[in-house]
């Protein structure tokens, strides 16, 4: 029995198994390509919004900081600290969304269970205004974090998928294809050898009969 360079027995059974394996791998590669395209589309969508969100967040933070400085100047450190103590720390909830098996965070409720983003309690108008501006900034900051984490996770998955596709395309599939070709050639050779053997035997038998 002949063997290929990959030490696989060159039999019809192996050939059949390899062909099935190749078909399976081809299908897998197609699916991975689809996943790659989908992830790339998703990352593009996020990247388009990321620069806008970053710009908005920076602007909003600068604005909030200005109002905070005014509130500190107007009320003093102790006055503003006291106004701030009338509001519970801000809270938010996150849930997970799956994009082609990649878990990405989604911020669902910024106010938290007790509705802590309500600043009715803040007694000083200047402090209340600064608090509102800061809340908006924090919301934007969280949105930015949500998008950045999503981009990071999708990018990692995209890289891994791409690597898998490339490996299938450039290493696994060519190797199996080559193996199949080798086995096919060997089997063909064996068939031809068998044919000649039979032909030679037939002619020997015929010449002895004469």
């Amino acid at each position, binding site marked *: 029995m002949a063997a290929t360079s990959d030490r696989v027995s060159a039999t019809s059974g192996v050939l059949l198994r390899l062909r099935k394996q190749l078909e399976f791998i081809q299908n897998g590669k197609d699916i991975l390509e689809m996943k790659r395209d989908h992830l790339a589309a998703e990352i593009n969508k996020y990247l388009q919004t990321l620069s806008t969100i970053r710009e908005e967040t920076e602007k909003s933070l600068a604005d909030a900081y*200005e*109002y905070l*400085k*005014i509130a*500190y*100047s*107007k009320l*003093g*450190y*102790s006055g503003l*600290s*006291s*106004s*701030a*103590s*009338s*509001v*519970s720390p801000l809270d938010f909830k996150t849930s997970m969304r799956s994009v082609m098996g990649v878990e990405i965070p989604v911020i669902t409720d910024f106010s938290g269970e007790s509705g802590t983003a309500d600043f*009715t*309690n803040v*007694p000083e*108008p*200047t402090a*209340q*205004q600064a608090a509102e501006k800061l809340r908006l900034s924090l919301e934007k900051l969280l949105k930015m974090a949500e998008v950045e984490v999503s981009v990071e996770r999708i990018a990692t998955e995209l890289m891994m998928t791409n690597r898998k596709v490339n490996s299938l395309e450039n290493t696994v599939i060519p190797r199996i294809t080559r193996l199949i070709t080798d086995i096919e050639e060997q089997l063909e050779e064996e068939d031809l050898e068998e044919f000649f053997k039979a032909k030679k035997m037939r002619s020997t038998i015929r010449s002895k009969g004469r």
Partner: protein
Amino acid sequence: MRSPRSVYLVTRVHGLRIHLLDLDDIQLLAKAGTLEQIADKLMPTEYAKDISRPSSGKIYASELEAAFLKRMVSRFFFVTSIAYKDFKSFVLAYARRFEVENIKRVIRAKHTGEGVGQLIPLSAEQTSVNFKDLLEAKDVAEAVRSLSKTAYAPLAESLNMYNEYKTTLVLESHMDKIYYDAVSLGAKKLKDRDITRLIGMEIDTKNLVMLITMKDRKINPKLVEHLIIKNGRLSEERLVSMSRSGLGEIESALKGTPYSEAVGKAVEALGKKMGMYKVETSLLRPMLKEVKSTMNKSLHLPFVISYLVKSEMEAKNLIAITMAKQLKLSVSLLQDILLV
């Protein structure tokens, strides 16, 4: 005819007035580059006793703030110590504003369970409240109950409303009502029209700031109505009706009053989405004008009240200047915040 004691008090306060920083001093401090420069400029003044320069030379605005508040409180209580009879009772009631502010700070912290933070420095003689018990209270209800043996005992009546609206604004406004009731009563006993007007204007200013900013914050009108403080120059009915109407209607309802122009400017600032500090500063103008004119009646008791108002304004201005310097707030914005 004025009593010798009244003449003595006014004369003493004239002496005290010299220690107040004038407008030029405030502007000079506002233009200073650093907190250290501010501290140096304050060294030849009364504040030298309260400002200490650490060996590192680095000064923080919060340390200066504590010094300014300490000086303000001592100025108030020095006047109470030299005042007499009904005027002493009135000034004592007036000086309770720091105690009221401290109680409010404790209540706010108890509401959320946060730390109380810094209080206005008051000695045991300068307050009628046992702050130790108040600070040890587990929650707002316990804090309010700890005030049962003080002038703030009626605060317990607002606990139901506090639980209904879940806001300490209810308790804070009740504190203000108790405070201004006592101050107005003291002012009435003095039978001095200027003092009554000054206190009335202070209450009006507080009410107008509350009404206009609450309107902008779209707070429940029923709650806003409850936050109105009585005893001002504007009648309660007028204020209640304003609490139910829009900003434009408030402006027209105040035509012909000393607040007309200020409210117009405040509403305009709100319309242009300017900072709340602009709204507050605009609304404070009529009162500041009144204080200035009372300061000119230098031989009468209202001069003493004007001195106290000016002392408080000075502390607020110095706090604003030092905070603005530490946080690198622009000079133009600082000028808008200053009460001059």
